[in-house]
């Protein structure tokens, strides 16, 4: 497993450049990342959005657009669908979200995935760096699925395990998170954790280890958190837990976060408030994931 995002960026430079759709790049940070991603040989951007707005922002940051391909589509859903079509036909390797509501991309991704492989459940994985933990770990699903039942959790884990394999983590450690009450243990997330461990034993999730511990307290009662024992994948019980947790890690714990959504495509889904640096790392991660075939599993 990669130890940090720096290693990912280094790997991306070996792979690149790949053709990438940048959806609604009419934001200075998004445009700068697209420009510098191209300059550093990571991506060949295809800019998708309203041409006038794209040109205005490019002008703002003194970017000559001559060598960049622009697809003029200002209607958000149409533009998102167009990006996914380009992944489908192999024109681009992955999609980068710019200045647009994530919902449009989710909708396009869900639709495409349903067409190509209805058994797959699109889901978001956040990749994290945190102080004191010497590897990248992931949390899923903070973005797409609101309250997954056991069947959906199984599909999310199949996807997550597959993505981690692509990143060189041969046997990801999976923690199915459930709150620790100390006085009550019969909750649906606890029951699902037991069931998922069983499914992992039957080989239904791909090569991985589902841990018995369902939270950090149970895994590290002495509070000595060690990298080698730390989970690679945390599966959260609901979208609120996932979303709050991933943002707590970068905003309060002061670690780093990169959001990626997977289905029949890799879609990079940074927060709209993410700045330039996060977006550059995001391009690199998207590249490494796309090259590892994360969006193409059956």
């Amino acid at each position: 497993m990669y130890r940090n995002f720096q290693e990912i960026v280094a790997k991306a430079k070996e792979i690149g450049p790949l053709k990438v759709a940048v959806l609604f790049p009419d934001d200075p940070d998004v445009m700068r990342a697209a420009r510098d991603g191209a300059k550093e040989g990571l991506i060949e951007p295809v800019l998708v959005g309203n041409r006038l707005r794209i040109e205005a922002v490019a002008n703002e940051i003194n970017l000559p657009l001559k060598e960049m391909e622009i697809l003029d589509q200002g209607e958000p859903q149409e533009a998102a669908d167009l990006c996914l079509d380009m992944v489908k036909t192999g024109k681009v390797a992955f999609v980068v979200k710019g200045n647009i509501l994530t919902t449009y991309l989710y909708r396009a991704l869900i639709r495409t995935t349903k067409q190509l492989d209805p058994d797959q459940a699109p889901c978001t994985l956040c990749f994290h760096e945190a102080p004191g933990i010497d590897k990248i770990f992931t949390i899923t699903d903070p973005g797409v699925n609101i309250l997954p039942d056991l069947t959906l959790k199984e599909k999310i884990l199949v996807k997550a395990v597959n993505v981690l394999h692509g990143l060189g983590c041969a046997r990801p450690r999976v923690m199915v998170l459930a709150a620790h009450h100390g006085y009550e243990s019969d909750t649906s997330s606890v029951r699902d954790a037991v069931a998922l461990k069983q499914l992992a034993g039957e080989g239904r999730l791909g090569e991985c280890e589902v841990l018995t511990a369902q939270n950090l307290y149970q895994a590290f009662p002495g509070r000595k958190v060690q990298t080698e024992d730390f989970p690679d994948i945390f599966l959260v019980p609901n979208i609120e837990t996932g979303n709050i947790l991933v943002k707590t890690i970068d905003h309060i714990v002061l670690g780093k976060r990169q959001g990626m959504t997977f289905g029949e495509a890799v879609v990079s889904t940074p927060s709209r408030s993410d700045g330039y640096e996060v977006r550059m790392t995001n391009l690199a991660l998207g590249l490494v994931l796309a090259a590892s075939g994360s969006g193409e599993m059956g």
Partner: protein
Amino acid sequence: MSHDFKKIIRTADQNDRKMLVISGQPDPVALTSVLKARERGWVEPLACGSSFTGMASQIKVLCPTADIQEARQQALSLAQAEESGLLLDTGPLDTSFFSLIADKRTGHNDKHILSYVSILMAPKDGRLTLLTDTLINKQPGLEEKIAITENAIRVAKALGIQRPKIAALSALELVNPALPSTLDAALLSKMSERGQFGDAVIEGPLAMDNAESASAARHKGIDSPVPGDVDIYLFPDLESANLTAQFLAWVGRFQLGGILVGTGVPIVIRSFLETPDSWLLNLALGIIANKDI
């Protein structure tokens, strides 16, 4: 211990001595903290249950029953009978403990629902930040959330936060019928706008990034004094609150304090979210909040 936590200890120093009744299984770290609290003039301790007879030379032991539940019941009655009594329970924090203190018939909890407030020092600006409900209510509905919010506001005010700013968290900042926690957050926000929480401001729904950062909130068009200046994080459910608190403690390595609210009589405990050396901090919180909880 951090600066603001020291301030809590110093505030406790200024209070009059209170009677502290101890129940539960003897816990050496807890008892050392109790003795420290006695030295500082916070409490006059006594213990309930025969399991404490070993320390009778240090702490007066009453009601020498071997039944922990019976001892707890008696300890609670003793603390309640006293004008300024406190209970300190050294665990285990099991179902029987919680059902005892949540029992409405005994009058320990006739007004409020029980909830737990975790207290954290925010790393950016070092201010006290409250997180709730990190331990008790699994799937609170709007009515429970109102009580949980009121409980947390009382703790904030006891800690000297005049006009607490509260972020009602969810997964996104838009109201979405598919995500019921956004509806609860919006309603709480509206209630606060109409003054239903007194001198406190609730903003919601907020995602964690726009609660934490004023610029992220502006980016999303949220015009409110709460983002970037949060005193209380109100979580949508126990999974999110409890697991986030665990990440803060285990990965962020922050020391947490904690206080049980809605009990009628102050009850000091140490949940698994706090390290053993947090007993004194939790005791200080119980002393300061005293009547208000």
